[in-house]
């Protein structure tokens, strides 16, 4: 299959030799791969701000996109699945974006074309990759993607989130939920721990004698003091975490037996949420812009170190200090959109400014947040200033923080999907 694809790519490159001439006569073309927080935002801003001067194509396999952010709140029962699902109709109808629901399976950077599963090729002047994450093969011994029904990752939202929620609700009385947490760097640093909070919230109501076990290769994690305080306060005794000092980094699983082996001690579990080590979505690797697991980019405009006409946004990029979050991807997309538009139409290009805030829900109306601003330096995107919620905050502040996160969700999804 891979061989066929490469062969095909070779011929496609020959077939499109005449393309640059066509391009020179027509509007400049931007192809965006991936319709999440990075890609949808970039496509929308380029289309919106160029007023039709740039031809924008967005390639996204799914017709309905479920945001990873707030998918934990779905698991916890605070959102329904429909409320985190979004379609691309407005981007097509109101912004004139050519939305193609297909997989991008190859990039020919010499011919400047993208190949789709269906065999079509899309020429580009600028290519923006925002493919999110894939999992590192063999990261958790015993688990691979074929085991994702027995042991869901639920780290791409949608059917995986539904599956994990159903498994939690079906746990036997007093059962055990295990999470194999990922090593750094990974998508959404507080995400696994917000998920623990949401699972605990469900179990406290329906199955209060159940237990939660986190097997974690990391010494520490995002918002740790806030989560640990919250778990103690709301779910005292339910959550146990095994860090690397106690074997948390030496873990394997057996999806057939539903067991987890932690440093030689085998635990039988009822639900096993395996979140393996991550890498850039596959198309970044196929495009040849990755170095190791991620795609290094220039901090000033998110263009790749490998190719000034190819940009990588969000989780897939190696950019410096920003966490891999939807907020970060959205922020990077706007800097990138401004730069791409400037390069193609001569519009004004302004200096890069980046920001991130991550809200997490610990229990009903108990929201916390962490955020920072960033600037472009020659080496990387570097942190400037930041803040984090404090332990011991009063209930009104935590409620306001949660309500703010609900407002943010409405804001960022409007910013992505129009």
């Amino acid at each position, binding site marked *: 299959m891979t061989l066929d694809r490469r062969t095909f790519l070779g011929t496609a490159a020959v077939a499109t030799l005449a393309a640059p001439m066509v391009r020179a006569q027509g509007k400049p073309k931007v192809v965006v791969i991936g319709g999440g927080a990075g890609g949808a935002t970039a496509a929308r801003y380029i289309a919106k701000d160029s007023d039709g001067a740039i031809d924008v194509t967005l390639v996204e396999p799914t017709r309905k996109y479920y945001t990873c952010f707030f998918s934990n709140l779905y698991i916890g029962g605070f959102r329904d699945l429909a409320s985190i699902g979004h379609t691309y109709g407005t981007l097509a109808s109101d912004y004139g974006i050519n939305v193609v629901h297909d997989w991008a399976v190859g990039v020919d950077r010499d011919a400047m074309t993208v190949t789709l599963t269906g065999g079509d090729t899309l020429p580009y002047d600028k290519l923006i990759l925002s493919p999110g994450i894939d999992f590192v093969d063999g990261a958790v011994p015993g688990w691979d993607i074929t085991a994702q029904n027995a042991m869901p990752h639920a780290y791409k939202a949608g059917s995986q989130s539904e599956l994990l929620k159903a498994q939690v609700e079906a746990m036997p009385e007093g059962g055990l939920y295990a999470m194999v947490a990922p090593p750094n760097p990974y998508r959404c640093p507080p995400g696994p721990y917000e998920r623990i909070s949401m699972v605990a919230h469900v179990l406290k109501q329906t199955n209060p004698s159940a237990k939660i076990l986190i097997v974690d290769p990391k010494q520490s994690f995002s918002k740790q003091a806030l989560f640990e305080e919250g778990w103690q306060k709301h779910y005292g005794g339910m959550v146990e975490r095994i860090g690397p000092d106690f074997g948390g980094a030496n873990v394997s699983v057996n999806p057939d037996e539903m067991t987890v082996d932690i440093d030689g001690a085998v635990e039988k579990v009822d639900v096993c949420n395996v979140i393996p080590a991550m890498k850039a979505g596959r198309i970044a690797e196929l495009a040849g812009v990755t170095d190791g697991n991620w795609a290094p980019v220039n901090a000033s405009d998110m263009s790749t170190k490998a190719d000034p006409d190819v940009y990588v946004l969000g989780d897939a990029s190696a950019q410096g200090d920003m966490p891999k979050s939807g907020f970060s991807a959205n922020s990077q997309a706007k800097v990138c959109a401004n730069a791409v538009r400037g390069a193609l139409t001569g519009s*004004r290009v302004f200096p890069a400014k980046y*920001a991130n805030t991550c809200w997490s829900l610990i229990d009903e109306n108990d929201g916390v947040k962490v*955020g920072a601003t960033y600037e472009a330096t020659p080496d990387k995107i570097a942190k400037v200033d930041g803040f984090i919620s404090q332990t011991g905050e009063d209930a*009104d*502040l935590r409620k306001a923080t949660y309500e703010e996160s609900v*407002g943010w969700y409405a*804001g960022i999804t409007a910013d992505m999907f129009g």
Partner: protein
Amino acid sequence: MRRTGPGISLAAVVCFGQAAAAAEIGDAERGEALFEQCSGCHQVGPDAVNRIGPVLNNVFGRPAASVEGFRYSTAFERAGAKGLEWHIDTLSAFLENPKAIVPRSRMSFRGIADPQERADLIAYLRTFSASPRDIPEADPTAPPTDHDVDPEILAIPGDAEYGAYLSSECTTCHQAEGGDEGIPSIVYWPEEDFVVAMHAYKSKAREHPVMNMIAGRLNDEEIAALAAYFAAPED
């Protein structure tokens, strides 16, 4: 600085200055008629007693939740403890949307949208507060101008195109269409109000961690650019 209040609630209502600035000095006679909608719960005048709501005599300059013998909601007591005081600006913002200033108070009143009506009502209440009464320009009857933003900063002309680019940082949270679910609307503000609000966040006179961080790194020209853009945002 007297315009301090319960950190979160006031921070949630970013349009404080705007609300008060829009109101002219009110007409106490019209305010008396408007007070009818309050009188089911509140009394004023020499014989006033606490009823469902507290007496509103001498409300100007008084900390929230400080009438003796009245049982306040926890929400109001907290607001008072955090420093909310009743002046023309706080009263106007509160009357515009009580639940936004003191969430979960027991006062069931949806608010008065018209700034002139609020000003009239406040002028009426003003007649039941201690001197200096009948001096229209004296605090607390005059609209507030007590921000400390340098007039030269306020006079900087904003580069709306730069503001449009910078605004993309705002619209991650604040909706470009102006929705205000959990996060306030920031579109179609008068430029001066916008500049004053942003400098209040920049100096941390107004507290909110995200806004302190975002405003903290904006320079005077960038704040002016944002104000120019948001005063008349494009579609």
